[in-house]
């Protein structure tokens, strides 16, 4: 484990960062807008203070890349309802705990004694289901292409173990087809593509961006040097006027991706329509279980719930790159990570949380009063 750090620090070299920043400054002469479609990029960009180093005419827009943030309000309410059924034990990733539903949140329910367990890996749901056979264990499956293989593997293990008390609430989403829908209404100058998703799907799955939509695209990793390499590549493509799909994260991403994971997913899931916050229901952007795996599904009601929605905040615009968090009236006042109004303020991958934790900072010049 401890060997991870020295490897990472080589991607945090101030000398390399300095060189890359200089290269980007030379390339970016006019205002450009780049969309980053992964919450981890947003977070890393702010956490390392990259925003304080790059030219101000290079602006970064958030895209729908935080799995908690794009989950529709009705689905949040659905999960909260599932948690409240007495026979259920809900197993979930931590990020969703504080997301406010129409009336309460999972964190609040847990404080009142509801059986909700936080898992680092979906496989934990297997242990819980095995050790508590009288409980109906529901795994909240939330995430993009990156997470889907792990959910598939969990179900296959559950099947082998003959578990009858485990189900999944499917909130999984496919980012790639959603980008097609998104770019009907938004056109950034370039797209910083998510390295995690690409690790599974491969570089080639992103080729439609330059080929069909004429959008410059670069797959990037998450360390400061990785992000800068992606941005430099995008700046190069933009100034050359030649959109391409570039892989600046070759240590993790191959052309074809992880074929084992892909075949595991294909044998468990088929594409299905799903609801996105801010985008509505989009065909082919979700997953449904197929064949013998269908018995694990808890299905979301389509019309049974009356969600109040979150018209009170701008999350639905923030995740589409149509508003910056600071434009929201509630940002930083009524809406903070401890008391979030919308999901973008909850998850570490949420744009609002990243902007709240790490506001833009100018060098603090001082003047005599």
């Amino acid at each position: 484990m401890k060997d991870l750090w020295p490897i990472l620090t080589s991607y945090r070299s101030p000398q390399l960062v300095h060189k890359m920043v200089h290269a980007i400054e030379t390339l970016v002469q006019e205002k450009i807008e780049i969309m980053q479609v992964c919450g981890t990029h947003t977070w890393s960009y702010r956490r390392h203070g990259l925003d304080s180093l790059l030219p101000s005419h290079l602006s970064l827009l958030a895209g729908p890349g935080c799995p908690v943030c794009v989950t529709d309000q009705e689905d949040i309410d659905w999960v909260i309802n599932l948690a409240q059924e007495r026979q259920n034990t809900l197993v979930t990733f931590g990020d969703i705990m504080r997301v406010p539903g129409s009336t309460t949140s999972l964190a609040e329910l847990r404080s009142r004694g509801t059986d909700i367990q936080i898992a680092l890996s979906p496989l934990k749901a297997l242990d819980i289901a095995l050790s508590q056979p009288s409980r109906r264990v529901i795994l909240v499956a939330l995430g993009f292409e990156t997470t889907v293989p792990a959910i598939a593997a969990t179900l296959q293990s559950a099947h082998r173990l003959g578990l009858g008390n485990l189900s999944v609430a499917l909130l999984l989403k496919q980012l790639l087809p959603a980008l097609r829908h998104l770019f009907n209404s938004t056109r950034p100058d370039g797209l910083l593509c998510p390295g995690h998703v690409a690790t599974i799907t491969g570089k080639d799955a992103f080729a439609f961006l330059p080929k069909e939509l004429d959008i410059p695209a670069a797959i990037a990793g998450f360390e400061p040097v990785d992000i800068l390499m992606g941005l430099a590549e995008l700046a190069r493509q933009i100034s050359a006027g030649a959109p391409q799909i570039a892989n600046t994260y070759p240590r993790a991403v191959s052309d074809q991706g992880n074929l084992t994971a892909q075949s595991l997913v294909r044998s468990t899931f088929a594409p299905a329509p799903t609801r996105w916050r801010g985008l509505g229901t989009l065909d082919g952007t979700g997953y449904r279980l197929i064949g013998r795996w269908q018995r694990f599904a808890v299905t979301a009601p389509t019309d049974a719930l009356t969600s109040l929605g979150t018209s009170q905040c701008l999350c639905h615009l923030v995740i589409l790159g149509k508003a910056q968090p600071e434009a929201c009236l509630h940002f930083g006042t009524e809406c903070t990570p401890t008391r979030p109004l919308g999901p973008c303020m909850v998850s570490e991958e949420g744009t609002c949380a990243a902007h709240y934790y790490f506001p833009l900072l100018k060098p603090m010049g001082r003047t005599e009063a």
Partner: protein
Amino acid sequence: MPLTITFHSLSPWGERKHRDEVTTAASLWVLAQRCSMFMSIELIQLAHGSGGSATLRLFEQVFLPHFRDLGLQPDNDAALLSLGNDTTLAFTIDGFVVDPPFFPGGDLGILAINGTGNDLAVMGAKPLWMACSFIISAGTATATLERVVESMEHAAKVFSVQLVAGDTKVVESKGAAPQILITTAGLGILEVKEPWHVQRIRPGDELILSGTIGEHTLAVLGARHGWFERDPVTSDCAFLYPMLRKLHSIPGIHWARDVTRGGLGGIVNELAKASGYGIELYEKGIPISDLVASWCEMMGYDPLHLANEGKVLLSVDPEASPRVLAALQNTPLGKNAAPIGHVMDGGPPLVVLNTAIGGRRLVPAPSGELFPRIC
């Protein structure tokens, strides 16, 4: 171009000669910290015990209005009580609960002695007497309780602390796993001429950290979730008095604080708020082990927000800094001590971090319960 406004107009601490300019966003951030203070808390959640902004809100909303006129000294780890005959007592109390009660490098019993002892030691006092109270939920194994009590005995003997009074209560466990809660009150005698007090902090003070950060939280989380099949992280749980005693004769130490709940990020934010000065930190200077840094990257934790149980942060006069550093580095607990930043001249009372790659950002106060991330 971002709208630049002066912090001065927003600041309740704005009576200073200097004013600093921050962007709208940074001001908003501070404003948010203050606005959220006025929101009512309907239900206590785990976040209210995390040592971050939620804990502060609970304190300011529920406790401060009632206790402020009763002599409360809220800005320090222990209250100083002068007996008028050149003797000043340091007095404190702390509650301890940890799941699991035993973890690599420590346990609940050791924490209960060390934590309270350290709150006295960081005032410049020698911890001498303690009283303890146990709240035990029904269903707790006696063997577990005995192990905890043995640990307390051992720690108290090693550090010459007398356990002079105690109390036990048993409560229903109400369906939850049985738990032991220990509260220890501690009394010590001030040994430094001038107490290490937040009011003595001066602009230009150097901040010195006694060692690496993040071990305690990771050790406990790892033990709780079973992460440590290989490369376990050991808690830094330690009694700080033997190390801090070596600093008693050095003039120019203004303030000290054990860097516990809320982590370094939480403590420096409290320091900024209590002193009214801005704080500048250097990420490169902050000691952290490769193992902890790797775990943090893997789990998505910011090491600045992880708790420690054997580290102290000192604010010292720059002239005294080399002596303090040398004295710390001469002790086993302080061998990794390093200067990590300084107190800025004036406000706003925010913490700025110069990142390892050469950027700058604010360090937020931790906001609640630590949740691991999805990816």
